[in-house]
């Protein structure tokens, strides 16, 4: 069995009296591409943000290589540097050029020297096809370009697992393809990824496991052919039928 990277155990999260996540359980192994699907408000993004500790889980455990990351005394920044995240709204640093965006984390967090950081940044920018734009500021780029830079920024940190929070939801339809193809390449290279997405085709073709969430619980999970092709639960069928008809 492949090396287990992340284990989510009995994870719950409440905002006040509103329980957003209820007793979530699943595991991510080396090389897995997990697609998390579900309607808006079902807790997909919150789950991802909890995994990255951007939200503090109310209860439950997040085991990273077997070590619990939710307890007191955990070095959250150190953990986050191993778990990359790509946001729906890109969140590129507005005060830096594209190249600097991909270098600053390596230099400040990983303490790499400038030349190494530059080389690594250029390599990943090349991979996502953004190398010619190293001098541009984020505000000068299109949405798809920004998202590709954001992916390069996350990759430059050498993460063990990459979290994508609806990476294509804020993009125009013609830009969705360029971002998805970058993600597809990553999957082919064996990157471990967790992708919250509404792109069913991506979930079907690229992912190795699909998690369907409904109202804060995992309703159904398994290989894409099973969850998407032959769903067992009525909720899953209803959700998927909306995508089929469109």
């Amino acid at each position, binding site marked *: 069995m492949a090396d287990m990277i992340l284990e989510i155990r009995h994870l719950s999260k409440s905002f006040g009296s509103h329980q957003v996540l209820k007793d979530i359980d699943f595991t991510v192994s080396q090389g897995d591409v997990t697609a998390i699907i579900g309607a808006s408000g079902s807790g997909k993004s919150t789950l991802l943000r909890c995994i990255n500790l951007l939200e503090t889980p109310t209860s439950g455990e997040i085991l990273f290589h077997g070590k619990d990351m939710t307890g007191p005394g955990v070095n959250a*920044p150190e953990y986050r540097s191993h778990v990359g995240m790509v946001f729906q*709204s890109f969140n590129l*640093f507005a005060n830096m*050029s594209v190249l600097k965006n991909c270098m600053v984390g390596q230099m400040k*967090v990983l303490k790499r020297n400038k030349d190494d950081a530059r080389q690594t940044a250029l390599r990943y920018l090349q991979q996502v096809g953004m190398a010619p734009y190293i001098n541009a*500021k984020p505000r000068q780029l299109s949405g798809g370009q920004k998202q590709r830079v954001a992916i390069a920024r996350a990759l430059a940190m050498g993460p063990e697992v990459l979290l994508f929070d609806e990476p294509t939801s804020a993009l125009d339809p013609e830009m969705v393809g360029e971002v998805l193809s970058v993600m597809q390449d990553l999957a082919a290279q064996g990157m471990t990824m967790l992708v919250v997405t509404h792109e069913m085709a991506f979930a079907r073709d690229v992912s190795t496991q699909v998690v369907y969430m409904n109202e804060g619980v995992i309703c159904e999970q398994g290989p894409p052919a099973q969850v998407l092709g032959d769903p067992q639960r009525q909720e899953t069928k209803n959700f998927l039928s909306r995508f089929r008809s469109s």
Partner: protein
Amino acid sequence: MNVFSKLIYDIGRLWGKYWGSYLNGVKNTLILAVVATAIGVVIGLVCGILNTIPCSKNDPLPKRVLLKVVRFIVRAYVEIFRGTPMVLQAVFIYYGLPYFSNNALRFSSVWAAAILVVSINTGAYMAESVRGGIISVDPGQTEGAMAIGMNHFQTMVNVILPQAFRNIIPQIGNNFIINIKDTSVMFIISFTEFFAFHQYITGVNNLYFPSAAIEMVGYLTMTLIASFLLRALEKRLDGSDNYELVSEDQLVMAAGTYNHPDKGTPFDERSKEYREKARQELKYGRTRGDR
């Protein structure tokens, strides 16, 4: 004699005799204002970092208590120094120190006292401006920085404060200009800046109005130059609207990018021709054959 020619004559007389003292006053005022504003901005930035340290229930108790204490101190500092007149603060600090220490401690130079008082006063105002500047930066920037593993200090210094700083430059300008003028209250601890010379000179020869006229022009000149320089700094920080693609095959890679037309060309939205054309179009509609 005409009043105005008399005024000009008096001003000329004063300037001819005391121009060195006036200029010396200008110099002292400017040094005090620049140094105190700079230190004040640094104090403001530090308060901004301290005020925004995140605190979650998972943190150990001592850390949470410490954070509460730090926040209380910053808050008290801001409220006290923002809420009392600078003249009184000067008196309190300059005369209070020897009073409480039985003359064992006193300021060796009036410069140190003046810079201290104006700095901490400016710092109190800047702390609030910086707080506003930090709030104005998109929270996504913080999340982006945290997601690549930066801690609070690294996030602030590398990502948030540079953007907040850009946003509060107008506020810094405000404070700088206020400092140029308000350092005049430092005469209370016998700091000889621009306005103090006015008091000294008029004490000698009773030419109140002509001297005040010189002061007015002097202060206005200083503040105008200050606002001009700050505008220039703002522009510089905004950087260029353009960027160069780094590639041999520019035609292919340039797809989907937009370079702003050069300044002054008819296609530049800021040029006179473009605006005139737009205005005409609004008024009469687009002329035929224009496309």
